[in-house]
């Protein structure tokens, strides 16, 4: 027989258990709720341009004429700008980030590793406006001086700033991906007489392929969503950029630049919400891509 004291104690424990479980479950459900609310609210504001102002999605996505006052909110210049700076960021920052990830996971002497980890953590923590400020005061003058750009502001400057900003993401994710490759595979390659670089290039990188893909996708996500650092150095000109040194604008910088002065209910405001909604869809698409890449590697 179980004594009564123990019985009541444990029944109270079971009540606590169900309460705790309920609270924890509610907190998890809140995450779904929050995301749903974001999608619903941004969609309802972001689709007004098409359903209230009756502007065709083609005129929004396919035209570079951004004149909301005359009902022409063409966002193509911003879309091209976003894609261009993101492309430069990933082309410059991606390989460098993976290289440092390789270094940290395979080459770094422990002492150096323990210096670099906090350094990368600090790079993550530096606010985007400070990166923007550095781009403004350090990089733009250099580009003005050496590349003959008039202002120093433009696609190239923004791309370089972004490539540095995505480095920590790419570095730490690619380091994790490479570290998760079993050491036995590395040994097998070395035991066949491969050099360290051959082992890295022919075995480790392919084996970590899906993790590295994820690192790059999340780097892209960070780059395409960054607003202020880009806005401070890109020159903010709503035209499709003709060259690397030309000023441009992106979806995010355009929101930052014009939201403050947009009348509630105006075509301008609606088109800015549409851009935000487009950015939300891009973010969700990239996350879906990440999950697909990870699932493929699990097979």
């Amino acid at each position, binding site marked *: 027989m179980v004594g009564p004291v123990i019985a009541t104690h444990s029944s109270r424990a079971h009540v*606590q*258990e169900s309460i*705790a*479980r309920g609270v*924890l*479950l509610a*907190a*998890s459900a*809140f*995450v*779904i709720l*929050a*995301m*749903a*609310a*974001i999608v619903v609210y*941004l969609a309802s*504001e972001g689709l007004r341009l098409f359903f209230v102002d009756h502007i065709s999605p083609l005129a929004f996505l396919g035209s570079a004429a951004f004149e909301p006052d005359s009902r022409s909110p063409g966002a193509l210049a911003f879309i091209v700008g976003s894609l261009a700076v993101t492309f430069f960021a990933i082309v410059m920052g991606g390989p*460098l980030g993976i*290289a440092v990830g390789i*270094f*940290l996971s395979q*080459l*770094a002497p422990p002492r*150096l590793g323990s210096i*670099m980890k*906090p350094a990368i*953590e*600090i*790079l993550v*923590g*530096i*606010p*985007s*406006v400070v990166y923007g*400020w*550095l781009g403004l*005061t*350090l990089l733009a003058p250099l580009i003005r001086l050496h590349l003959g750009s008039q202002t120093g502001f433009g696609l190239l400057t923004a791309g370089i700033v972004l490539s*540095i900003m995505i*480095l920590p993401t790419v*570095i730490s994710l690619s380091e994790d991906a490479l570290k998760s490759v079993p050491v036995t595979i590395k040994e097998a390659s070395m035991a066949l007489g491969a*050099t360290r670089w*051959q082992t890295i290039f022919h075995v480790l990188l392919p084996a970590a392929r899906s993790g590295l893909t994820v690192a790059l996708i999340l780097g892209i996500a960070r780059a395409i*969503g*960054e*607003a*202020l650092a880009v*806005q*401070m150095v890109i020159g903010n000109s709503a035209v499709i950029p003709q060259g690397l040194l030309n000023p441009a604008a992106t979806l995010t910088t355009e*929101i*930052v630049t014009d*939201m403050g002065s947009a009348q509630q209910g105006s075509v301008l405001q609606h088109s800015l919400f549409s851009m*935000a909604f487009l950015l*939300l869809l891009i*973010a*969700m698409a*990239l*996350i879906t891509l990440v*999950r697909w890449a990870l699932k493929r590697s699990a097979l």
Partner: protein
Amino acid sequence: MTATTPSTATPFVRKDNASQRRLADAVATGLLWTAALGIVLLLAVFIGYLLYLGAHVISWHFLTAPPSEISAGGGIGPEIFNSFYILVLTLIFTVPVATAAGIYLQEYARPGLFNSTVQFCAESLATIPSIVMGLFGLIVFVQVLHWHFTALGGALALTLLNLPALMRVTQEGLASVPQALREGSMALGATKWQTIRRVVLPGSIAPLTTGIILIAGRIIGETAVLIYTAGVSVSPGRSAFNWNPFHPAETLSVHLWYTHSEGLVPDAVDIGNGSALVLLLIVLVFNISARILGRGLSRHFTGK
């Protein structure tokens, strides 16, 4: 003792591309070292340059005085206050919800539709651009609830943005507690919740604390999400240091951006230089204290 090596011995390098491979290996090693040291150098240059720009700006007056709208000589006192105030508000919301959700996912949830939906939503939240989250805050707190620009609205938008990171920190912290400890507690008849509260959570306190401080260091630098939620202004004069969560509360990072892009003051460059340096120093303090505290706690809780 070493015998003399017979001169007839087969050379180690047979028909092979060894010298070529060795060269490639050396070149690659050199490049990887360059990349890695380049990162450290880059950080050093950033810190040095910001010090060079901003050191002469920083004074007691600059750090405490309210900002000026038109004339030179404004400070960043209320902005520093607001940065920490909004940080604290954000943590008050984020920590309980994120740890609870993290505990659920790590300890209770079984693989299934609910679990993968939560994961997908958390990852999406983490990926939403800061400015987009800012517009969501603008819609909900400013347009629907008519709060206007408020510290509370900013903190809530920041909460959504940073929930996933803290959930992940929680999950990783819990995962670092050995399974044997859980089994030991359960075998004594403890319920799952009792086990989590008395064994698992205390066991993960060090990584949790470190993680929260590091995330706090990032929250304090968030900018885009706050422009259209907490606003770009502070109340005039003494009332700038305002504990009312329903007041507009421009933070230091927003101030740096605003002064540069829209400000009218003649000393905007100095204010920018000073603000950038102060932000950097705050981030450094957060990172260093996270490390020191994390190390201390883990020593304390794991018995040295």
